């Protein structure tokens, strides 16, 4: 038995396979994007669609995965500032440290909104590089995918041709899908939406949605009673289509407000697999738009 296992392992080791890239993604949307561009890559995601990427608990497995990664793909722009720097340091993997080719920050590939002119701790969540939730505009994904293809090609020159051809095919499908989403989302133009956390501004800009404010008084600070009652007063008479939150956010704030205003409170997938419908990048955006359209029919 043991000899057979040994034999098989030796045979497997001897087959000159094209070594698959090992990729560590901080969030599921980047894991999904890498899988689109490099289906053979060994991809691990640090968080699921039900976890807040701002914060995770240290687990030995995370350090081990970063240690053997060829490429780390994260939103960046300080979204993971609470844990990623520590994880990278503990991994002692020189190739994936910031500034190295093995370190890819998605948010840095696109134009970010809300880059502050001055950083003041009093203003809540510190994002000196701007709002990091860039995955919520599909046009950003187009740009990030193009940059990621080049990065994959740089790290794995033997597979460069494959990455570029899959990148081009993805680009075409994605651009076509964007046209479809924009057509479906036409009724959402000008609609006012309230959100739990300030993580949807890229979606608003893309679809022409009016930003109705947040349940959090300052980014990252849980809704307070006084802020909720202030919102309630402000909402008197205003037409708001929906109160949206991510799957990992506490439902009580938005349900409280929904109960008092009659505005539907809904969960929107902020990433792939955050809802049952969002199984890949394409169905994720389908689901976002379907849920927003359904909210208006109630």
């Amino acid at each position, binding site marked *: 038995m043991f000899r057979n296992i040994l034999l098989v392992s030796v045979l497997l080791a001897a087959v000159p396979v094209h070594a698959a890239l090992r990729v560590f993604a901080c969030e599921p949307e980047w894991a999904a994007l890498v899988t689109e561009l490099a289906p053979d890559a060994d991809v691990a995601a640090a968080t699921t669609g039900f976890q807040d990427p*701002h*914060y995770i*608990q*240290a*687990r*030995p*497995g995370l*350090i*081990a*995965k970063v*240690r*053997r990664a060829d490429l780390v793909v994260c939103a960046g722009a300080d979204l993971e500032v*609470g844990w990623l720097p*520590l994880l990278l*340091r*503990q991994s*002692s993997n020189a190739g994936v440290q910031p500034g190295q080719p093995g370190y890819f920050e998605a948010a840095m590939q696109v134009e970010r909104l809300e880059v502050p002119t001055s950083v003041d*701790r*009093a203003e*809540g*969540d*510190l994002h000196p590089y701007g709002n990091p939730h860039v995955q919520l505009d599909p046009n950003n994904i187009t740009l990030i995918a193009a940059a990621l293809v080049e990065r994959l090609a740089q790290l794995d020159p033997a597979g460069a041709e494959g990455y570029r051809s899959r990148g081009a095919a993805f680009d075409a499908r994605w651009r076509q899908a964007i046209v479809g989403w924009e057509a479906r989302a036409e009724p959402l133009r000008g609609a006012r939406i309230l959100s739990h956390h300030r993580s949807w501004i890229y979606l608003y800009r893309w679809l022409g949605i009016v930003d109705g404010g947040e349940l959090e008084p*300052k*980014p*990252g*600070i*849980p809704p307070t009673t006084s802020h909720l009652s202030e919102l309630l007063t402000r909402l008197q008479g205003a037409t708001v289509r929906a109160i949206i939150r991510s799957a990992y956010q506490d439902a009580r704030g938005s349900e409280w407000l929904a109960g008092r205003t009659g505005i539907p409170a809904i969960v929107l997938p902020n990433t792939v697999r955050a809802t049952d419908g969002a199984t890949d990048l394409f169905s994720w955006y389908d689901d976002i738009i379907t849920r927003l359209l359904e909210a208006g029919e109630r």
Partner: protein
Amino acid sequence: MNMDALDPSIMGPAFIAGLLVLATHVPLGREVLKRGIIFIDLAVAQIAGLGVIAASAFGWAPQGWRVQVAAVTAAVLGALFLHWTERRFGRFQEAVIGVVFVLAATGGILLLAADPHGGDAVRDLLVGQILWVDMQRLLPMGLLYAVMLGLWFGLRGRLGGLGFYLIFAITVTASVQVVGVYLVFASLIVPALATQGMAGWRGLAAAWGLGATGYLLGLAASALLDLPSGAVIVWSLALLAAIIAGIRSWKNPEA
């Protein structure tokens, strides 16, 4: 299952941190148990944490010396207060400790009310992030503990209640920032509890052995099951202690 995570260079620093914590907390825990003031460590650890939180609320750099000074000052003041209440109120000491604990815990929440990472900071203080320790953190911790252990065993008997409270406050301040309140409590109480009744060095050695085995098994389980290390170690310490206590009472039903 994730065999890669068993890599000694990943678990090593965390295990060394665990051994350092055990080195000081096991003798202190036996004393805590003897004095019957079990929850003092929760209170003092929480006060030290309040000092850290207050320092960061002033905008001081998280790893800076001023934060350490603030934490030690808070913990020492808390310990002095508890030493005074022990003499003043005696039989109500446990109740006073409990009230001090909830005040320190909720005080931290109030101080962090306007901090976007406040929830994370409170959670870190409780569960700790033992996996993030490195040698730069372990060296000063080891030196400090060596001094505290020297004082503890060197001045034994002559220390008195005040000496115990001060050594306790300084030791817990260092450990709580690395392993968190839960693991500090478990490291103090669980080995001491499982070996209660075993006197002198024999009891100490047994408690140290149990603690070290608990940390090792906990770290391994956390690697294999991909679960947060601090919480798993608390459980492995408790399970191991329950097994040991069961064997002891089976072998010696009188004890």
